[in-house]
């Protein structure tokens, strides 16, 4: 168990890594080893391959100032590469949002076999915001008009996007003053690509400010729209209990794993596996039933809304197949390792791609179409059932460990929780912060990365924060990590939380760490922070709040976009490993120092999650002091 223990703190993961070793099947950790040492130019962001005069690389140890062939300095190259990563992340989240609008539009037009308006209240809230007439109109009519308006958020060329205006007034004014309020999602992403083409923008500050604008078009745009319309289409989450970790796979039922990000198909698969027709077919094939489980963010989507168990997070995707018990893994987009098809070929597991944007050589492709989502979902579930008899009975190894969890918190339902059904309000939360029961809020989000011990960054950081009375909200793979450690249970407050936070959790009956959804649902955190400002008593802007963010195990470009829109919204954000910017001292200084005076937030790079938690706590204390809040109640 030597190396496996260094690779993850999660017991089931260690167990499965041992099996991978015995079966001689390489995983991401092994592939990382084969990549070492990694390219220094790449790690520092000073390799430019944006044109064919290059590739150019700047020697970070040269005493003389070097430039690329076109004359681009390290600052220009680093800034360009960095905002291209933002654009990649923003594109991914936003394209996800676009697909949701598409399904929403088809639902409004009655052109799908699966979707309808499931959250009328939220539909009307959005309609009012977009000045869509409600009175005397059917939901579908309202939705059709709204869909057009949401599509416009992507294609708008001038003016301002609407969702960013939800931010506190002072913040919106600041963005306007800085010229970084996004115009349209696609506009900003395209402009990032243009500015970074050979021979365009070479003022690193100007480049980075547009990076912020692009990121804001994600967080306050594409991601936020994805969250909003998913709530309308698939209903807004409510707190719900479920189970988590590889132990949720079943020995005697058909195991279907949905992996990826978008809820459009996975939500319909939930209906398909529950249909009597499918269950009967599964029984006919010798299974006791059908067990649907999720992986990564699509898991969070159907966990939050249906209580579907969570099989694991990013680094556990190969391990799920390694159990030999997965009859079918259905994937859509993002964070799906190309390695999966290789692992699956060693077992009976059927891997199925579903998005026209993500195919894999030799892998079965069943293309998703929103028009006949249910039909397609049933087709895929049927493939899983038919594959069940192919399981190799002896070759199955399912770890027996899983944890209980509570998920399903949103910016909206926190109102009811805190204020109770009679007086829905954020007041108790604001008061708890003002009185010093809760020190502040922290968002811990993001991926897994084999460079950091799996789940260690997330779990240790979250524990340290709640110990110091910081209420933590989590999304994505971070949320899954905490769930696997049992931190998403109300009992975790008693075990790990500081006294003040524990009192609040016990009074309200919530865990000290709130699972608010998938990675596009980081937009829920932005809205929650805005609600805290609106409630009053904690300043006028997000940057006044005693809050901090972190992505302790980040790896995806999406995390670069998320971290950027958080600092551009005024939140200090700590990263577990540095962004690929250290090759330019000026860019590093801008993003890690100067940005705080400009947009209110900045990056901090710290690999030790406990130290990182204390950087966040110190920052929260600084903000508390600036707001002249009372000292912490129990210290």
């Amino acid at each position, binding site marked *: 168990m030597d190396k496996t223990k260094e690779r993850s703190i999660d017991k089931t993961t260690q167990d499965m890594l041992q099996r991978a070793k015995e079966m001689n099947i390489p995983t991401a950790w092994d592939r990382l080893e084969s990549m070492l*040492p990694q*390219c*220094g*130019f790449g*790690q*520092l962001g000073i390799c430019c391959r944006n044109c064919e005069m290059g590739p150019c690389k700047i*020697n*970070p*140890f040269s*005493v003389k100032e070097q430039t690329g062939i076109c004359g681009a300095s390290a600052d220009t190259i680093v800034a360009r590469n960095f905002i291209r990563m933002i654009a990649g992340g923003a594109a991914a989240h936003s394209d996800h949002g676009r697909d949701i609008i598409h399904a929403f539009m088809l639902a409004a037009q009655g052109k799908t076999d699966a979707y309808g308006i499931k959250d009328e209240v939220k539909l009307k809230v959005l309609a009012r915001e977009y000045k869509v007439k409600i009175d005397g109109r059917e939901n579908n009519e309202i939705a059709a008009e709204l869909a057009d308006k949401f599509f416009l958020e992507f294609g708008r060329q001038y003016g301002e996007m609407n969702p960013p205006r939800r931010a506190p007034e002072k913040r919106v004014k600041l963005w306007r003053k800085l010229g970084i309020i996004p115009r349209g999602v696609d506009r900003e992403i395209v402009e990032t690509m243009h500015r970074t083409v050979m021979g365009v923008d070479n003022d690193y500050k100007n480049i980075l400010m547009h990076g912020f604008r692009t990121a804001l078009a994600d967080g306050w745009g594409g991601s936020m729209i994805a969250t909003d319309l998913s709530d309308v289409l698939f209903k807004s989450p409510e707190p719900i209990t479920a189970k988590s970790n590889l132990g949720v796979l079943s020995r005697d039922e058909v195991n279907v794993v949905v992996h990826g990000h978008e809820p459009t198909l996975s939500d319909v698969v939930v209906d398909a596996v529950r249909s009597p027709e499918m269950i009967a077919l599964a029984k006919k094939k010798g299974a006791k039933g059908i067990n649907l489980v999720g992986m990564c963010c699509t898991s969070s989507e159907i966990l939050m809304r249906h209580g579907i168990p969570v099989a694991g997070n990013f680094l556990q995707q190969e391990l799920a197949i390694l159990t030999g018990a997965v009859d079918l893994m259905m994937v859509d987009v993002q964070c799906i390792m190309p390695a999966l098809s290789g692992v699956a070929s060693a077992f009976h597991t059927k891997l199925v791609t579903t998005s026209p944007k993500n195919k894999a050589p030799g892998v079965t492709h069943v293309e998703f179409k929103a028009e006949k989502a249910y039909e397609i979902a049933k087709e895929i579930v049927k493939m899983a059932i038919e594959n069940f008899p192919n399981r190799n009975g002896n070759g199955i190894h399912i770890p027996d460990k899983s944890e209980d969890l509570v998920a399903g918190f949103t910016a909206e339902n926190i109102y009811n929780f805190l204020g109770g059904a009679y007086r829905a309000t954020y007041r108790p939360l604001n008061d708890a912060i003002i009185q010093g029961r809760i020190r502040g809020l922290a968002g811990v989000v993001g991926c897994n990365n084999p460079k950091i011990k799996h789940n260690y960054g997330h779990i240790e950081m979250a524990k340290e924060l709640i110990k110091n009375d910081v209420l933590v909200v989590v999304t994505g793979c971070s949320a899954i990590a905490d769930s696997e450690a049992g931190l998403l249970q109300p009992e975790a407050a008693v075990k790990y939380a500081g006294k003040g936070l524990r009192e609040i959790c016990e009074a309200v009956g919530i865990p000290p760490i709130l699972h608010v959804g998938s990675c596009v649902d980081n937009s829920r955190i932005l809205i929650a922070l805005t609600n805290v400002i609106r409630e009053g008593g904690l300043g006028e802007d997000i940057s006044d709040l005693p809050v901090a963010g972190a992505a302790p195990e980040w790896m995806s470009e999406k995390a670069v976009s998320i971290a950027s829109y958080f600092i551009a919204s005024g939140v200090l954000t700590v990263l577990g490993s*540095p962004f690929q910017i*250290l*090759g330019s*001292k000026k860019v590093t200084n801008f993003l890690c120092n100067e940005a705080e005076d400009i947009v209110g937030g900045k990056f901090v790079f710290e690999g030790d999650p406990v130290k990182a938690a204390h950087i966040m706590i110190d920052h929260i204390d600084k903000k508390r002091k600036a707001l002249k809040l009372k000292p912490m109640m129990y210290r």
Partner: protein
Amino acid sequence: MIACAVEQSSTGELFKAISETPLPVSLIEVTTAKEGESFPLQCRHCEEPYCIDACIAGAIRKDPETGLVLSDEEKCVGCWMCVMTCPFGVIRVSLLPDKKGKIAVKCDLCQDRKIPACVEACYTGALLFGEVEDLIRAVNKSKEDRDVLLNSR
């Protein structure tokens, strides 16, 4: 080149090494021949090194056992004779950590490592480390491999 500079740094970590003062110096460089082929250039540890003859301070010596040409940085007085005589141009000038002066620095084949940092960092296997006979064998083998590869296309 980067791996070498990081090896010369006091922290030994890339992300920190780039901010050190003085900036660590790479003792290997990748250069291009007239034909356009690139190759790494570092100290050849000559049989009869000019640098030793040129060194007035007696700082550079040849290790009788390993054959390595080593420089004692304590003894170096910074006269740059070695830099001028080296036919390969691989002896570098480095600022002392206390910034009080400069000394000549050269490759010692990473004596405190099992494999030199440059060899470990080399992706393509262009750099190898070992005894001469083993290296000749390895190079011949890689030529054969390359021929096989070329013929198979």
